[in-house]
């Protein structure tokens, strides 16, 4: 009798121990679908709100979720307002949310510098398609990825285009005295010099002055083959307009600082044929079936035309989705997957070097045609390839 009682006790004990061992994690409501999400960091509101880059990422995730309604991927945009301090605080929130396995963006270089040290601690990978400051990839961050060419690449690309495609021999290189414009113009001038092109004149505009007659006059006197302008839109608009008004019809070229619809609306007819370089493509370009499908899907989803870096972000979002689809289930796995990824996107082939930069970041040359920028050529490793 006593033996039997001890047996009963043993069983009760074993049951208690077993339930104890199994209990406690009752919050797991898994139904065969692991929770995973992609975050986006960039300005969604505030003064730095731009042509909405995040739309490209949102569309890519929405398309995936339409095909996989049983196990959707979360898309969580975090609004940084372009403020690095705010971005750093958001980074803490992102890191705290275990379902977030990768981050798209940040949109700008300043916020990228603010968030990467936080992501780095937890092996959370980012992929930016728009933060182009060259120093970002030199900070030793192992989880940093940039699927776009840097500012450094635009200068040599412009020089290659001017000398190899336009076959110029004498170029005026003008900047707007700003840091971005001056750096870019210097890079172009240096590379043109190496190619034996004469730089004359090398001038800087005062961005506050409205009348550039003297500069324009010297261009007419010297007789240049082309004008390269490094800077932002407003001084560039005045320069180009006054050039055309003075009857100077030589090719005009600039960087992504003037990739802005107000260049076309501000200069008017004279803007036609102007070239710009950008590490980004023209998202309204519908020259291939998949780009046509993208533009159609974009219009259907958002109700307006794609602008800015949306196609780049569509590509990097699909890159990260591919990582998740390929079974990368943790932050570290996604990071490793990205490090060795070879992905052919709509804008370019994406592959990262050890520093996280894209191995071959093409620079695109776009030309003003009518009221839009049409893709004209692709420059990869200093070689110009004209689009058909």
């Amino acid at each position: 009798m006593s033996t039997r009682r001890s047996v009963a006790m043993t069983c009760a004990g074993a049951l208690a121990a077993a339930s104890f061992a199994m209990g406690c994690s009752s919050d797991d409501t898994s139904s065969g679908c692991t929770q995973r999400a992609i975050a986006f960091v960039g300005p969604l509101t505030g003064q730095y709100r731009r042509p909405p880059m995040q739309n490209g990422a949102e569309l890519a995730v929405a398309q995936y979720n339409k095909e996989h309604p049983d196990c959707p991927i979360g898309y969580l945009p975090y609004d940084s307002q372009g403020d690095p301090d705010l971005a750093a605080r958001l980074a803490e929130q992102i890191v705290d949310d275990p379902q977030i396995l990768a981050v798209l963006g940040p949109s700008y270089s300043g916020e990228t510098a603010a968030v990467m040290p936080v992501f780095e601690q937890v092996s959370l990978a980012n992929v930016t398609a728009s933060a182009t400051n060259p120093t970002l990839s030199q900070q030793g961050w192992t989880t940093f990825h940039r699927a776009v060419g840097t500012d450094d690449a635009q200068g040599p690309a412009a020089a290659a285009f001017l000398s190899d495609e336009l076959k110029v021999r004498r170029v005026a290189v003008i900047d707007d005295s700003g840091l971005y414009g001056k750096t870019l113009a210097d890079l172009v001038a240096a590379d043109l010099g190496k190619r034996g092109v004469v730089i004359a004149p090398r001038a800087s505009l005062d961005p506050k002055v409205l009348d550039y007659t003297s500069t324009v006059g010297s261009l007419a006197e010297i007789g240049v083959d082309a004008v390269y302008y490094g800077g932002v839109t407003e001084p560039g608009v005045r320069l180009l307009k006054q050039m055309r008004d003075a009857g100077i019809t030589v090719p005009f070229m600039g960087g992504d600082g003037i990739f802005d619809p107000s260049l076309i609306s501000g200069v008017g007819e004279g803007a036609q044929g102007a070239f710009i370089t950008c590490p980004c493509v023209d998202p309204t370009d519908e020259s291939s079936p998949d780009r046509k499908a993208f533009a159609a899907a974009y219009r259907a989803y958002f109700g307006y035309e794609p602008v800015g870096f949306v196609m780049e972000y569509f590509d990097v979002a699909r890159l990260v989705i591919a990582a998740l689809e390929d079974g990368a289930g943790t932050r570290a796995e996604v990071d490793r997957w990205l490090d060795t990824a070879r992905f052919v996107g709509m804008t370019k082939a994406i592959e990262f070097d050890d520093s996280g930069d894209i191995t071959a970041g093409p620079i695109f040359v776009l030309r003003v045609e009518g009221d839009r920028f049409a893709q004209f050529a692709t420059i990869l490793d200093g070689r110009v390839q004209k689009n058909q």
Partner: protein
Amino acid sequence: MRRLLDPRRWSLGAKIGVTLVVAALVPMALLSVAATRSGQDAVEQSELSAAEGRAVVGASSVQQYLLGVVGRANQLGTTSDVVAFLKNSGSTSIPAIGATASQFDVEAVILADLRGATRAAVPSSYEGRNVAGEDWFVDAAAGQTAVGRIAFDPRTNRSSVIVAAPARDPSAAVVGVAALQVSGQDVLFALNQAPLGPGGQAVLVDPDGRIVLTRDSRLLGKQLSDLGLQDLADSIADEPSGTRSKVPLPGRGVQVVAWSATTGGNIAVVFQPRAAFLAPIDRLARTTRIALAIVAAVALLLALFVARRLSKPVSALTNAASALEANTELDIDRLENIARSRDDIGRLARVFSSMAAEVAERERRLRAQVEALKVEIDEDRRRLTVTELTDTEFFRNLIERAAEIRRRARGES
């Protein structure tokens, strides 16, 4: 296998070990479960009040932001060219409301006359719309500023809010309505000013129980009831603020929820995943479980060891006893080894040894007696055999027949 399943047939060591583990560790385990539970409850309570605070901060932040927009709408409604434009039914030129839109950082600007006809708007797609049926228009035309409800467009997955103010001429007479539309993103930004805990999220729910603002596209535009949160939807509709624990949010695990009403009948709702804030306690519980498992294993091993030491002499005694029983050779050496021990088993062994020795002696004596008896018996038996032989009828017949033969031989010859 059967033996393992039937505790009655376990060895002494196993029985002692399991009893030890059960007696000592089960109460410990139960105690630790209870401690974990109460720890979870305490953390949950504090998270609930923290979430409530966050919901209030989010709600007031949204309110503050929209109040700012109301101020801008008021400013626009009292601008002289706007007033003149609305008053003179289109005879003056359209005010530069495009510049107003970018200056105020809003999506759209609408100027409507008192009949609700949109007289000027940016973007132009709003032009010509009649807004007389809109709540915000009715309020503003009646001289009050109004914050419309958050409108969610399921086609574009975007939300927006219209804020309206009466346009008043210098005599304070209402001449029309100036309305500003702000993007839901701006309201969401305000809502997210609530400091959220790990993995938490703030959403805005409209009076119909639909999630109209959230970061998570998987939740956007969903009715709470469609997410299986009918109870929560009812509570939110009934009480202006409150909390709820253990709410399962599909795909995001179990949450604690707090809400607080804000402008326009909308409700700021804060979700905080339990798993995130219970993680430290779960870690502690896991550590305790591992520790208990190790203690159990060690206790079991120790018990087995002790029990084996205990049962070894017993089994030696058992062997000796069965040897005695089977009347085979006794391992006296082993027995004496045990007998040297001074504990109970040693005494038992000594008693057993002397008993065995006595038994052996008695047997020896018995054997000798048997031997002697055997000799006696043999003598008797021989005697008995002769008697038996001579006593038989056959023998007597034989004797008689022999006498007759002898007689016959003598008589006839």
